[in-house]
């Protein structure tokens, strides 16, 4: 359902992705593994349309590169950036609702999706009325996941979700991901991580990104190293 074909991306004159080709099937959970600076975030930002790209990216039957960045979420793509990027002017719940409001979902559908998100991430219900600028970094990651779930009906991309999470919070985050998988077996998940061991029990397979190139990898930490 997502396919990169000979994709090259340069940032500020440096080629971050070089002639990358890979394919991800619907309902797969894929770990995108790589060291810091290997190009994981760039790969996700490229799918969102934030980089200058040469090559082909297909999403389903569609040439994604021909779709304006602002129209991509409406295809069912939800993205939780590593640094959360919440809108601090609004409450947590408003942040979660916003992608649905932008896509002009009916109030009933908004409500239904919000309830589903609260089932997957129960701690968000307690944070709902808090200003998004006041939640901790770890809680912010949960909010960013909730916001991605609002619109990501087909593909959800999580950029280093476990980075900087306290162990207890990381456990709760992993539980939330499992609940997500249990409630929605169709959605495709791409999770970037520098430590493959963290996703060993959760991802179906790994793609390793190394010096701008992508190859199949192992979820076993020792092998990948």
């Amino acid at each position: 359902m997502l396919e990169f074909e000979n994709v090259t991306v340069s940032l500020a004159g440096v080629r971050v992705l070089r002639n990358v080709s890979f394919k991800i099937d619907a309902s797969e959970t894929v770990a995108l593994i790589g060291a810091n600076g290997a190009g994981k975030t760039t790969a996700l930002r490229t799918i969102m349309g934030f980089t200058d790209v040469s090559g082909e990216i297909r999403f389903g039957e569609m040439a994604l590169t021909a779709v304006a960045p602002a129209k991509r979420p409406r295809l069912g793509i939800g993205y939780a950036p590593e640094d959360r990027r919440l809108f601090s002017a609004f409450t947590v719940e408003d942040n979660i609702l916003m992608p649905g409001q932008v896509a002009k979902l009916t109030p009933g559908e908004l409500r239904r999706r919000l309830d589903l998100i609260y089932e997957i991430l129960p701690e968000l219900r307690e944070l709902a009325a808090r200003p998004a600028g006041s939640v901790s970094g770890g809680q912010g990651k949960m909010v960013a996941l909730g916001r991605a779930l609002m619109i990501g009906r087909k593909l959800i991309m999580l950029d280093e979700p476990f980075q900087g999470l306290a162990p207890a919070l990381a456990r709760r985050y992993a539980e939330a991901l499992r609940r997500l998988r249990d409630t929605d077996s169709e959605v495709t998940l791409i999770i970037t991580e520098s430590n493959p061991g963290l996703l060993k029990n959760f991802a179906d397979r790994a793609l390793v990104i190394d010096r701008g190139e992508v190859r199949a990898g192992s979820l076993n930490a020792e092998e990948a190293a």
Partner: protein
Amino acid sequence: MNLQLIALAVFDGVAYAALVFMVAVGLTLIFGVLRILNVAHGSFYAIGAYVVASVGGAIFAAGWSPWLAFPLMLIAAAVVGIVLGGLIERLLLRRIYDKEEALQILVTFAVFMILEDVQRLVWGVQPYFEATALQSLGNIQVFGVYYTVYQLILLPLVALAVLAGLRLFLRHTLSGRLILAVTEDREAATAIGIDTDKIYLMTFMLGAALAAFGGALASATTSVLPGIGADMIVLSFAVAATAGLGQIEGAALAALLIGLGRSFAVYLMPELEVLIPYLIMLLVLLWRPEGLFGVTQTRKI
């Protein structure tokens, strides 16, 4: 300085602040969202004033009701904002968002110069004076001072309504909230499906319409002649910088501060009148370089 003179200075200052606020708030809104310092902003003010003074003059001479002056101001502001503001954003500014600030300022300065000549071409260099709106509301006596209702009551009320309306719009309507989201983080806003091009266009039209509305309101109180746009852009920049660029409520207070400073200077030290707004700005910026209400931002890379 006796009570009457103080009252007069306060009234002058408040009336003037209301007009400056209208222009400065548009400037600061545009900067907050588009991150462009729009030098051509003064042209919207001038053109708003010219349109109302010339069209108003024509329709009142033809015997139409003087009360039409008020809807005319609103319509003129909307037309200038949507048509002229819309054209400038779509055709010009859209190409330079990712360019250097110096280039952006030069481009908007060029637009300002072109529009100055356009004004001369359309309206000539003779002053227009059309005070029907001012006269139709009459005078009022406060603290022994006769003052026009238009300047003492209407202008401040309109400025407050604009301030409250903007707050309401930005915080409680979806369009307004999308503007706030884009202001905070353009990429994150795009990632949730917000069409930032549309938000930029809408914000620029709104900001331009506010400046034109300021000009429309000012046209009843002063002669409209070449150069008013230049005066206003410099002054409203002083207000926006004093408040901290992007600060809407702050712009209202800074406008009041600068308006009152200027009007008291007129009565106490007339030779300093022109200098006072910049002195206030200089002192504030020496003390707080980010402006009275500005926050130092760490911009994301």
